[in-house]
């Protein structure tokens, strides 16, 4: 029996056990979309295993800005409440003092443990500014720590072994990656003369995205957070690229926007289009990374959900190989999306700094 077959069998068996555990405790219809959305979303606690009352999770710190800094563990949400909203039961948890409530992982300021709901079934209470160390934040801090250890470790090797000796160990794994960013991303898009200034940003973005993509693919603690598939994360990085682009932009970049080489009569159309173009470039960065990573997670989870929806372990025979296939594909996507984000960032920066000498190409 080959190793691959053995792995597949063990995975199938394990999935079967988990399926049975789940099936034993859940009643009513399995809601695949809720399940999937819950897993790719952020959370105030780090779920390990089990469902409902028997779920095991690691509590994470909750930090709220609500007339000063409020800090407590997510374990503090202990009081379960159920209210009827538009004929549907809505469950929520409040803290012991009844000051804060959590509904669908959003924290609201409660009035003595009670929440008011509007006509659409959303709480109408105030939302304090939530600075909690959520699962995504914790995962991000972990990824930053790993990156620091990896690269500072690799950097030390240069000091220790000297510049001219061939790279070894960790250093020999990292150096080609750094050189890849330098030779394939920075220099072709920004140019030999100016690329050096942007290398720290491009390298950090590339490895930050990549490692978070990879960590998202490992389904066990302390990994598995869908950070790089979170729109807040991709938005922040895309905005960084936008700010750099605007900060380094040369006269020609703005000239191209406000004085495009078209007849004056077309300016009322062209200028707004060009202005939208300024925003749409980083917007595409944000959406591309978010959508690719989230989609990968959704596809894998959906394959898993089939087993639960059919309530039959035999489906694992199809779901697990398919999910495995998608996981391997996602390994490629993880690197590819990090590359594309960095490549396009470099391209946008390069374009903004470009100085046209002739108006021939547009």
């Amino acid at each position, binding site marked *: 029996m080959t190793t691959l077959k053995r792995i597949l069998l063990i995975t199938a068996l394990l999935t079967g056990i988990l399926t049975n555990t789940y099936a034993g405790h859940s009643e009513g219809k399995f809601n695949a979309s809720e399940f999937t959305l819950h897993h790719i979303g952020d959370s105030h606690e780090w779920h390990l295993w089990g469902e409902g009352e028997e779920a095991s999770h690691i509590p994470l710190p909750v930090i709220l800005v609500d007339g000063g800094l409020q800090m407590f563990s997510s374990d503090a949400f202990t009081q379960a409440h159920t209210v009827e909203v538009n004929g549907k039961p809505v469950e929520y948890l409040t803290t012991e003092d009844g000051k804060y409530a959590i509904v669908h992982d959003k924290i609201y300021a409660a009035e003595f443990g009670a929440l008011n709901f509007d006509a659409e079934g959303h709480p109408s209470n105030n939302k304090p500014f939530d600075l909690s160390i959520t699962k995504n934040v914790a995962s991000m801090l972990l990824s930053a720590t790993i990156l620091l250890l990896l690269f500072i470790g690799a*950097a030390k090797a240069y000091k220790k072994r000297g510049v001219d000796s061939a790279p070894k160990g960790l250093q020999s794994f990292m150096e080609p990656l750094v050189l890849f960013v330098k030779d394939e991303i920075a220099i072709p898009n920004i140019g030999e003369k100016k690329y050096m200034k942007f290398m720290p940003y491009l390298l950090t973005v590339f490895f930050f995205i990549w490692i978070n993509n990879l960590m998202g693919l490992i389904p066990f603690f302390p990994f598995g957070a869908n950070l790089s598939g979170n729109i807040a994360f991709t938005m922040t990085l895309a905005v960084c690229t936008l700010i750099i682009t605007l900060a380094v932009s040369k006269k020609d970049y703005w000239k191209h926007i406000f004085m495009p080489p078209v007849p004056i009569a077309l300016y009322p159309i062209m200028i707004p289009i060009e202005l939208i173009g300024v925003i749409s470039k980083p917007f595409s960065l944000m959406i591309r990374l978010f959508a690719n990573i989230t989609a990968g997670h959704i596809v894998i989870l959906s394959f898993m959900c089939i087993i639960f929806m059919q309530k039959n372990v035999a489906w694992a025979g199809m779901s697990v190989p398919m999910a495995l296939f998608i996981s391997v594909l996602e390994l490629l996507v993880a690197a590819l999306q990090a590359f594309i984000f960095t490549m396009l960032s470099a391209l946008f920066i390069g374009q903004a700094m470009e100085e046209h000498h002739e108006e021939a190409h547009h």
Partner: protein
Amino acid sequence: MNPLVTPDFGLIIWTTLTFFILLFLLGKFAWKPIMGAVKTREDNIEKALSSAKEAEQRMQQLTAQNEQILKEAREERDYILKEARTAKDTIVGDAKNQAKKEATKIMEEAKKSIEVEKQRAITELKNQVAALSIEISEKILGHELADKNKQQALMDTLVEDVNLN
């Protein structure tokens, strides 16, 4: 709005904070030394390559120079040989001419001295002949003048000769 596409402000702030701290720390302690080392190495390699090329060029130059020197030496040798041959020819020719001249001169001198000797011999012979003639004449005359008739006859002959002249 769908929570999937609603950016969470808390996460934005944490991401910004983490990213910038990461950017600063990696930039200072990782990218700077790594990029610096890579750059130094690239420079060193480039330097080594260019010096190798330079050495090769010098080598080529040297080879070319050697060849040139060899060629020049060969040419010089040929020239010297040619010169020597010419010199030999000239010397031999000159010697021949000189010898010929010398020989002619010696011959001429010999001829001259022979001529002189010959003249002297002739003169001596003439003198001897003259002396002999005079002696004979004296003898004859002595004999003739002893007789008066004969003396007359001779006188007549001599006068006749003078008349004839």
